[in-house]
Each structure stands twice: as structure tokens, then as C-alpha cells.
């Protein structure tokens, strides 16, 4: 418990990147991802330049490479999927170290790997430099559907509470001699999950009452102003801007 989910991704700091308003950073990362996705997969060096841009941001934000790499582990399932494609792909085949691989599959795998890696790295940098709470303020500022923002906000607030409840239920089960060992124990776990769901649902109702008691009428009041000035938009725009320049520049060359 304690520090919990909030600080695992976030790396507090006071750099130019940290200080940028969250909505600017959100738009910058989305823009960057769009440019990356729009890049033809054959332009290897463009992807290299994109990676260089992210490295620059990391240096500016004083986020060490190890920090980013460790958090990029979330990508592993995608990597596994991508690595499978050349084996199951059809069409023209080539041999590499005695393995028969599909050429089209190799291209597809590279395409997924390169683009996903860049996207994940950008997101990790965003999360490292932006508090989760600020991210939601930014989303609110960008007029994302308020219901979604509120759901995300409550998840942020209650994740620890619910995990703690789950832990207490497990302790209660084990105190009475139950330890989940094989599939026959699944019904017990499932019933616990159901109980947890009902408890969380009831808590949701109580929280709703508490909100109504303090004048909630369906929309979250904008408590903290995170307005951005054009200079900050410009600074944040440099990442997708530079990426776009790379993309358009390459188009000129080819």
C-alpha cells in the first residue's frame, strides 16, 4: 500500500517538461504517436530520428534510460505477438539462421515493434513527468467526456482502497484455512470476487451520497486551473512538430 500506484510511473521533478501543463503534454504525445503511425515502415532512419527525439525529451526531463526501459516491460505481450508473425505469415519466405520466415510477416513485425515501442516510450515519458491527477485535469481541460474523466479519477482514488479490501478478504480466507491451490478452488475465488464487486458497488453508492451532500450536480467543478499559455503550447508542440518535419522531409527525399 502506501505510495502505491501513484508513484510507480511518476518521477517527481522540476524540469521544463515536468512544468508543462498536462493538456499540452497529452496533445503532444497524441500528435507524436499519429506522426509515427503515419510513417511508412520502410523508412528505417525516420524511426531512428523519432527515437532520438524521445531521447532528447528524456534528457530534458532528467528521466534516466533505465527508468524508461524498466517501465517499457508492459510492451512485452505485443513483442511476443510481433515475434510470432514471421513464423505464421504467408507468402514469400526467406531463411534466417535455419528458420523459414515470411517476408511479409517480417515487415509486419518490424512495423508493429517500431511503432509500438515509440508510442510506449512516449507514454512512459508522459507518465514519468506528469502526476496522474494532473493528467486527469489535462484531460478535463481538453474536454474529454467528463464521465470518462470522472471514472478515471475515482479509479485513481479508490484503487488502493479496493486492493486493500481484497487483501483483507484473502487474509480472512486464509485465516480459516483456505489456500487456493488448483482449479477446484476457483469457485471460492469467484465468490470472493463477487463479494468484492458488491462491496465496491455499495461504496460507490455511499460516495455518491457524500458527493450529493456537498452539492454535486453531475459535473466536477474545475478546482485547479491548469490553463496553458501559447509559449507552453509551443514548447510542447516541438516534439510532434519535429517528428512531423522528419516525416515531411523524408517524403521530399523519396
Amino acid at each position, binding site marked *: 500500500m502506501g505510495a502505491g500506484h501513484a508513484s510507480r510511473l511518476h518521477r517527481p521533478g522540476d524540469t521544463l517538461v515536468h512544468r508543462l501543463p498536462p493538456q499540452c503534454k497529452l496533445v503532444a504525445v497524441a500528435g507524436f504517436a499519429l506522426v509515427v503511425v503515419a510513417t511508412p515502415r520502410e523508412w528505417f532512419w525516420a524511426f531512428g530520428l523519432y527515437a532520438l527525439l524521445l531521447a532528447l525529451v528524456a534528457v530534458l526531463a532528467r528521466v534516466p534510460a533505465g527508468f524508461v526501459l524498466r517501465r517499457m516491460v508492459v510492451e512485452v505481450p505485443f513483442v511476443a505477438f510481433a515475434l510470432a508473425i514471421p513464423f505464421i505469415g504467408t507468402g514469400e519466405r526467406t531463411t534466417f539462421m535455419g528458420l523459414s520466415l515470411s517476408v511479409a510477416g517480417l515487415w509486419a513485425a518490424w512495423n508493429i515493434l517500431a511503432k509500438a515501442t515509440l508510442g510506449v516510450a512516449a507514454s512512459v515519458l508522459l507518465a514519468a513527468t506528469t502526476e496522474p*491527477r494532473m493528467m486527469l485535469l489535462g484531460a478535463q481541460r481538453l474536454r474529454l467526456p467528463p464521465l470518462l474523466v470522472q471514472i478515471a479519477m475515482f479509479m485513481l*482514488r479508490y484503487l488502493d482502497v479496493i486492493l486493500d479490501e481484497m487483501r483483507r478478504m484473502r487474509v480472512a480466507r486464509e485465516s480459516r484455512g483456505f489456500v487456493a491451490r488448483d482449479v477446484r478452488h476457483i469457485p471460492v475465488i469467484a465468490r470472493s470476487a463477487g463479494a468484492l464487486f458488491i462491496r465496491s458497488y455499495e*461504496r460507490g453508492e455511499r460516495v455518491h*451520497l*457524500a*458527493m450529493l*451532500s456537498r*452539492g454535486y450536480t453531475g459535473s466536477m*467543478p474545475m478546482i*485547479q486551473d491548469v490553463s496553458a499559455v501559447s509559449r507552453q503550447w509551443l514548447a510542447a508542440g516541438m516534439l510532434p512538430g519535429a517528428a512531423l518535419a522528419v516525416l515531411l522531409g523524408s517524403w521530399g527525399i523519396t
Partner: protein
Amino acid sequence: MSSPWSSAPSSSSVSSVSSSSPLPSPSGPVPVPPSLEVSRLAYAYPDGTQALFGVDLRVERGERVALLGPNGAGKTTLVMHLNGILTAGHGTVSVAGLPVGKGTLAEIRRRVGLVFQDPDDQLFMPTVRDDVAFGPANAGVTGQELERRVRDALERVGMLETIDRPPHHLSFGQRRRVAVATVLAMEPEILVLDEPSSNLDPASRRELAEILRGLDVTVLMVTHDLPYALELCERSLILSGGVIAADGPTREILTDAALLAAHRLELPYGFAPP
């Protein structure tokens, strides 16, 4: 509950249900309306369970009153009526002269500060600052004034230094105090606390008592912690079987063993009102 009427006290030194004010009306030319006036309030849940059978009570401005009662007496149901979360089946509730009704809900909810039993239900925002600001912000307070209200409310419960922390990183006692601050920030007419001492360790319990005693607001404290009621409230009401079964000075109520026994209330072992 089978027959709520039978649980009314048969003999008691404490005055029974009374609709008139138990205190002399305030002196001065302009009478101050009572902070809270509940009259003939009855309520049945949608499933037909009757929870309140005609509650009458009156809390004058500046009073600290304890609402005592066993589990299932209808305490929480009554509290839910005070700020219009439940609407009365019969009878009226008014806060500082303003009746609770559809058109007055926003103002009523500003005037009645409800502190829930579980602070995790009350503190739902990502930081203490956002949480304390939630109420006044809903009432349209912004900018400097909002910041002043937040700091002032946290100052009054001694929690100003936690302003930027997430509520789930605070201790239980601290969370309860922040929960009090969240309603103080709305500058309420009356503070309604649901079991304020539950789950607190003795030190947190005493600290909360000191804070509550220092506040300059009307307080209605719902509890079955009788020593706490004695410590903080001059006057107590017993809600039992959906009616106010007794109303009088806390000391008198707590020394009336027959009255307490009739309503499933008991002093803790070894405790005698000093």
C-alpha cells in the same frame, strides 16, 4: 422492527417527546430561527419498511446535541433527511428557517454539513485540497476565495500541512479530521456527524473532541458512544424505534439506567458520569 410504539419509555425522569423548544428562546428583538427543526417526520423505505414514525426535534443555533440510539433505530435514515438525500414521506425538515424541498436542495446542502462515518466515502478526490474545495466549488466559489476557504477549514482541524497529499496516504484519524474540514469549508449552519468517534484510537478521539469543541457551529452528533456524547454535548436525544424517545441534558439521560436499558443503550464497563 415489530412494534416501535411499545419501545417508548414508560417512566422516565427525562421529559419525553416534545415539539416545543427545550431551551429558552434567544433574547433580543429578532428571534434567530433554530438551526434545525424537524417536525412530525415519517419515512418508509421503498420496500415498505417503516424507519421513522414521526420525529420531532429542534436544535437551536450554537447548540451541540447528541442523537443517541441503538443500531437500527433510524439514526442514519434521519440524517439522510436533514440535507434532502431522502425526502420525507410525511412531515417537514427546515434548516435555519429554510424548509428542505426540491427547490431549496442546493442551499440546504450548503447549510447542512454531513460528515459520514467512513472517511473513505467522504474523501473521494485525488488530494486533500481538491476534496476540501469540492463543496464550495460546487457552490460557485472560485479563485482566491476558494483557496482561503480551503486553508481556513484545514487550519481549523489542524490538517493544513496535509493539503497537497492524497487522502489515502493519511492515517484514519487524520482522514476523519479532513472529512470534517470538507464540510467546514462550506461554512455550514449545522454540522451533522455520523458516529464521529468510531474506529478512532484514544488519542485521535480526544483530538477530534478538542477540535469539535473549538468549532463555532451548531453540531448534531449521531452516536452510540455515550461518554463521547457526555464529553461534547450538553443535550441529548434518544432516537428509538423511529421516534424521539427522550430529550434532555446528557448527564440526566446517562444517569437514568432504566431509560438507557429500555433503548438498548449502555454505558461502557466501569464508566460512571463524573
